[in-house]
């Protein structure tokens, strides 16, 4: 049982350290926050990334790769997590509104976006992963990103894309159940049916966090507790998958109540205990 770390969640994680087997640290935070780095080096840690932009079509940045490898080694992370997503994309050509000479720009979103789900993307991600593991010599687990709008150019569902990826690459799956609910809400899918389309036998880690609806859209919300549907899905995942880690993510809340977090951890323990 683990918990995601952030600046805002530092106090919460410290309060609950005795209840946790590990803490999951964002690579991006370790790079700039000495307190996080010091704590990560002195506790059981799992490294999680959102910077490799595996689905952008470009090879991962070499400098980023080497620092990820360095942190994975320093923390002795059992695996490294990353998203099936792109964070930045290069402009493919000029647009009428562009200033001359700026056609080759890179649009950096700074946020993991689920890419067009098709064979082309899957192959590209598999190639990127092959390049990544030559530097970062750790197992990788790939997380399903939330889909907030039907992505143009998609010919397959997320579960199908992950299944295809695991055929091409020796990676594990990080199943974020809140993201799955969001994707299904956006695409009008049945969450249980969609879950079963994933290669559950490759799921190594599960993420639990909240969701919230605003302006008619279901959004990821690491500032609230998981909803009941996530626990129902967790039961299914635990039945079919060799899950080694369950990470609670409450790292967007300035002051997430420790007793609520403890209650959710206990609830997860009860589900595990009942199996």
């Amino acid at each position, binding site marked *: 049982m683990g918990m995601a770390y952030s600046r805002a969640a530092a106090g919460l994680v410290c309060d609950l350290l005795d209840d946790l087997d590990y803490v999951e640290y964002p690579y991006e935070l370790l790079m700039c926050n000495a307190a996080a780095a010091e704590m990560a080096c002195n506790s059981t840690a799992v490294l999680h990334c959102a910077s490799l932009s595996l689905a952008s079509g470009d090879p991962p940045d070499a400098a980023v790769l080497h620092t990820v490898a360095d942190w994975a080694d320093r923390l002795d992370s059992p695996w490294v997590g990353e998203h099936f997503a792109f964070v930045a994309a290069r402009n493919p*050509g000029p647009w009428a509104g562009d200033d001359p000479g700026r056609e080759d720009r890179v649009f950096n979103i700074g946020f993991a976006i689920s890419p067009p789900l098709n064979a082309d993307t899957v192959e590209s991600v598999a190639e990127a992963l092959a390049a990544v593991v030559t530097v970062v010599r750790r197992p990788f687990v790939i997380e399903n990103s939330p889909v907030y709008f039907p992505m143009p150019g998609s010919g397959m569902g997320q579960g199908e894309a992950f299944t295809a990826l695991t055929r091409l690459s020796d990676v594990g799956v990080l199943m974020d159940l809140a993201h799955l609910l969001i994707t299904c809400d956006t695409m009008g899918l049945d969450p249980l049916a969609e879950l079963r389309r994933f290669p559950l036998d490759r799921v190594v880690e599960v993420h639990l966090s909240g969701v919230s609806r605003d*302006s008619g859209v279901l959004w990821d919300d690491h500032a609230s507790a998981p909803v009941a549907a996530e626990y129902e899905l967790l039961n299914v995942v635990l039945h079919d998958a060799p899950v080694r880690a369950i990470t609670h993510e409450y790292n967007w809340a300035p002051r997430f109540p420790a007793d609520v977090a403890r209650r959710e951890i206990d609830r997860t323990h009860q589900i595990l205990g009942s199996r």
Partner: protein
Amino acid sequence: MTVETRAVNAMIARGLVEPSFLVALDQDRGRVLDDMGISSGTRQDFIGLDCHRLALMATFICKVKNNDLWSTLPLTRALLQEYGSELEVFGVFSRRSPQRGGSLHERVSALVECLLSYASARRGQVPGLEDVVRHEWLVARFSNGWGLEASSLDTVDDDPPEARPANLWRPRIRGTVLVQSYEHDPLRVQLAWQAREWTRSMAPPTEPTFLCYSLGDTPGSRLRVFRMDPAVALIVGWVDGQRSPIEIANLMGAGTDAALVVRVLLAAAQEGIIRSPSAEVLAALQRHHGDVGGLPAKSSKEHEPLFGGSRQRGPDQVLDLVSGYAAGRLLYTLQRIGALGRFGTPSRAASVAVELGVDRAWLEAVVQFLAVTGGVFRQLDGGRYVVELDERERQRLNFELTKFVGAYGACLDAVGPAPDVVDADAFADAFSASVHSRADRPYHGSLIPGLLREFGVASGLLDLGCGTGDLLIDLAVSDEGFHGIGIDENRAMCARAVAEAGRAAVLRRVRIFSGDAFDVLANLPLDAMCPMTAAHSASFFNALFANGHRRAVDILTLLSDRLGRRLLFIDDYYGQLGVDFDAHVGLTWSMMQDLVQVCSGQGVPPRERVDWEAVYQRAGCRLLRSYEGTLGGFPRFIHVVQLAAAS
């Protein structure tokens, strides 16, 4: 990866980071797709792309990237989440947020500015939002030292004790005690949230709450928040290390009891909110004023008035009544002929009589009588008399005598309401007599100018019942861009307003009209003279309740027709005399006012806020905010009302 998939990624990424591109994609989709070389297969997908969702996602990303800002505003976030408005706020914020890499202070400042603007534009959508934001922002600024100038923080405490004037009170902080007024009590919100008892029922308007904030003497000491009676908060708010208790009493307005101000200051010093001048002065004040007790509790309406006098009952009540009546009339007479001012220095009645050309025996008898019966005249050695009042007390005496005896005296003699015998000139005299300099003006230190600023009223103010034009003239003098229109049915008042506007060289920007408010309002081309943004009335509506609420509703309806949906600031008082009169309340100045209102045919204004609110509602208007407190013995209020739409 194929060029096509790369192009999709790039277009989505660009749409998320470049709003102009997203707009182009939404409005001229075919051309953008042509430019980007999107082929027929994916093109169909793009035709169906929901750009609004993409825009929402850009907003969501902005929200996630700025999650750290909520650490300073946690209750604000809770409120927004409760009402499902967090994303909408970030939709605004994403268009104006500072560059990444800005300091936390800069980023939180930008968010607060955005939140206040959002709250102002969507009043009522998230009840209490503005107050909770203001509170949390204030706490954050105190806690982090943001926006508090180092010089202002240091100067007060760095003064060596011997350099401090002995009679000055000082904030017990590095800076000035900050006083804030809230319609929604942010501490109540905070407690409910912490106890996990938050519900939307916490948000409806509560009584306006005054909170004071201070920091301890030493760096790093904790912020303290005090809940106070509004009047106490106002007194403490004036303490800046530069003012004496008398000056503070003067700033509070005519009728404020200086001794009470001292008692409040002593109690505030005991509570550690402010610092008393010196141990010697403190001890002397305590000896003089006795037990200071704690700070007065909240809700001044439940207690004796904080300001104003109380009736002293003599052994023979009948004699008191008769002599009091005589003393009042005599004092007014002496005031009219200038004798009261003449006795400001010790003088013989005979000398003053010669000087003023009045009967010597009459003046000697009158002055002797007044010295025996009242506390105004005091007899000295050698047959001399003196009026022992300081300037402020003398001004107040002049005002109350001229108003109650001069203007309304004939009404009190009449049977039944007698509006026709009100002495309009005396009424104008009353309001002019107590004003000698701009700093003494009623609106110097009033909440009204600040409130107008807060609600964005920079010019174009219609002042109903403008009296001698004090508010409009003050605003015009302090801002060269200000224009205003004043209406008052008292021609003498209007004449003085015009004269004063001329003296202040603002006559072209302050237009005064005399006449019945209904007639003037119905016929005046308001917006043609200067674009109106709001209306104000001080002690105007209280005259409209002689026969129920109809006239008040009528004028609100007329105002709405002329100034639809604009704001009206009503500065008035809650009446006390009436069918629910509570004899145990005791005599107050507001009761005196009620009496002359009845006798002069103006009626008693509603007693409670809910009653006023009912009047507003009958006219289709809406009470947005209410400020209440006791001043000069009156339970006064300022209501911010949104007029109904023009019919």
